[in-house]
């Protein structure tokens, strides 16, 4: 029944691809115009219907019994096309994000607002990554590919690592300033934290390395104490939290799927 749809979304040869792309763009523009002009009272029901149908597809595909021979049910073949639809939606939200960035930072640059050069750096970096990224994927220009390599591996990845590594410095400063044993609970927490930290690094292992590795006394080795804390005390607490989260997540999912959720975003006028 859905076979023509699957065929329609299958990869296309390069000769007809531009027509499909042009058609998709036109169709998208048409849909966006239609959605913008939709009366306010029709928007929420439309969102509710689309949410319900999308959720129904995955729920039905998951729960519907499978044919033992093919290991599939009648919906299984449509999982991949559905995933492509998800990617398309992701692409559209990306476009929205890019447009928003261009509008906000473009305005900063044009009006020479305070810190306009930061906006310029952001937009230049974004445009450069897009252009050289596309060339890297689809082009053949060796120089452009090298530039992309410098931008991606030479800059982005290292800047990402640098930003993340700064956390270590803040952790040192924050733990020194904020960790005070003001109560019994805080004292227990600190002792536990120290034991886990010592058990996590070889220098901690060295402290109790003189103890035998077998027998009951081995339980006093710092790595074994750490292991006990993690696998017994910590795991029990996390199990309880995970159980609560699971039940809560299921309830929230059902409420969103059936459009029963209220408050904050869900009651906003659209």
């Amino acid at each position, binding site marked *: 029944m859905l076979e023509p749809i699957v065929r329609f979304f299958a990869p296309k040869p390069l000769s007809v691809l531009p027509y499909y792309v042009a058609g998709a763009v036109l169709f998208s523009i048409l849909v966006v115009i239609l959605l913008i002009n939709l009366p306010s009272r029709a928007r929420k029901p439309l969102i509710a219907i689309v949410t319900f149908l999308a959720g129904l597809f*995955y729920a039905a*595909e*998951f729960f519907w019994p499978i044919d033992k021979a093919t*290991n*599939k049910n009648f919906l*299984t073949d449509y*999982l*991949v096309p*559905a*995933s492509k639809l*998800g*990617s398309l939606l*992701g692409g559209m939200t990306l476009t929205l994000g890019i447009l928003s960035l261009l509008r906000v930072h473009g305005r900063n640059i044009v009006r020479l607002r305070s810190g306009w050069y930061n906006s310029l750096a952001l937009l230049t970096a974004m445009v450069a990554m897009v252009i050289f990224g596309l060339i890297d994927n689809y082009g053949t220009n060796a120089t452009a590919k090298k530039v992309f390599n410098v931008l*991606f*591996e030479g800059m*982005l*990845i*290292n*800047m*990402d*690592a640098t*930003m*993340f*590594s700064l956390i*270590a*410095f803040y*952790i*040192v*400063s924050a*733990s*020194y*300033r904020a*960790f*005070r*044993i003001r109560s019994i609970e805080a004292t227990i927490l*600190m002792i536990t934290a*120290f034991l886990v*930290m*010592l058990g*996590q*690094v*070889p*220098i*901690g*292992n*060295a402290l109790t*390395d003189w103890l035998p590795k077998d027998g009951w006394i081995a339980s006093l*080795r710092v*790595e074994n104490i750490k*292991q006990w804390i*993690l*696998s017994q005390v*910590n*795991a029990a607490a*996390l*199990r309880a939290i*995970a159980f609560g989260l699971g039940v809560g997540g299921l309830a929230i999912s059902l409420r969103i799927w059936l459009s029963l959720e209220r408050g904050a975003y869900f009651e906003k006028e659209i």
Partner: protein
Amino acid sequence: MAMTPETSKPRDFWERLQAIDRRVLYTLLLAVITLPLFKPIRLPMVTMPSTQKLYQAIESVPQGGFAIVSATWSGGTRAENMPQTEAILRHLMKRKLRVAIFSFDQQGSQFSYNIASRLAKEYGYEYGRDWVHWGYRPIVGVVLKSLVRDIPSTFATDRDGKPTKDMPVMKGIKDIKNVDVIVEIAASGIYMDWIGLVVGANPNLKFGFCPTAVMAPETYPYMDSGQIVGIMEGMRGAAEYEKLVNTTGLATKGMGSISLAHVLIMVLIIIGNLGYLATRARGG
């Protein structure tokens, strides 16, 4: 009441203990992290049961078995996740398993490809025959649901857009039942998606997880339940794994830095608390 270090001037020794300048702290941390890299410290290394279990799980897969490695990490956690990825791929290639790699992160895709390409040369692995890189794949839930039922369709092309269906490495791989082992190397809670959508679909599947150290404690209940066969905890886990596969990599070299950084944090907490307790005892 204790004074606030940043807002008022310390009056005596005990108060000064609580208000060490942050630049001093930063310099100390920088020193303890970098110095051991130039002058390594020899320390005893005990292999944790969680790491040993992961190693044993991969050891139990017969030669030629099919392994999927997902490298969902980026530059931010490369210090931990890169040695983990290298240790796992090294073990898989040593064991002569067929390896398929992909990532839910663009950076992870590039990193894992670079690591695998380098190791492939070392172990004589030929691309397409012994290993394949499926590239970056967005939208976790959809990909995982899809790969359970149909791997060739889910990963129809590799990272360069070449069709995978005729690659020898994919021979006989139809769905999750044909996969022997999956290892997720991540800096996030993505293991929940694997457990929820994939692990239960093949009772013989071995699912290993390599999180950053800060993520590790929350995964213990799933190792207890057997849904995760073993865990490689951060850089320390990677160092243990390097020892198991008889290699010395970045993780082993970094253990001195990690050790001293931990000790520095503990010493600073103790110093701050000594100052706090002494000030409180005086009624300050």
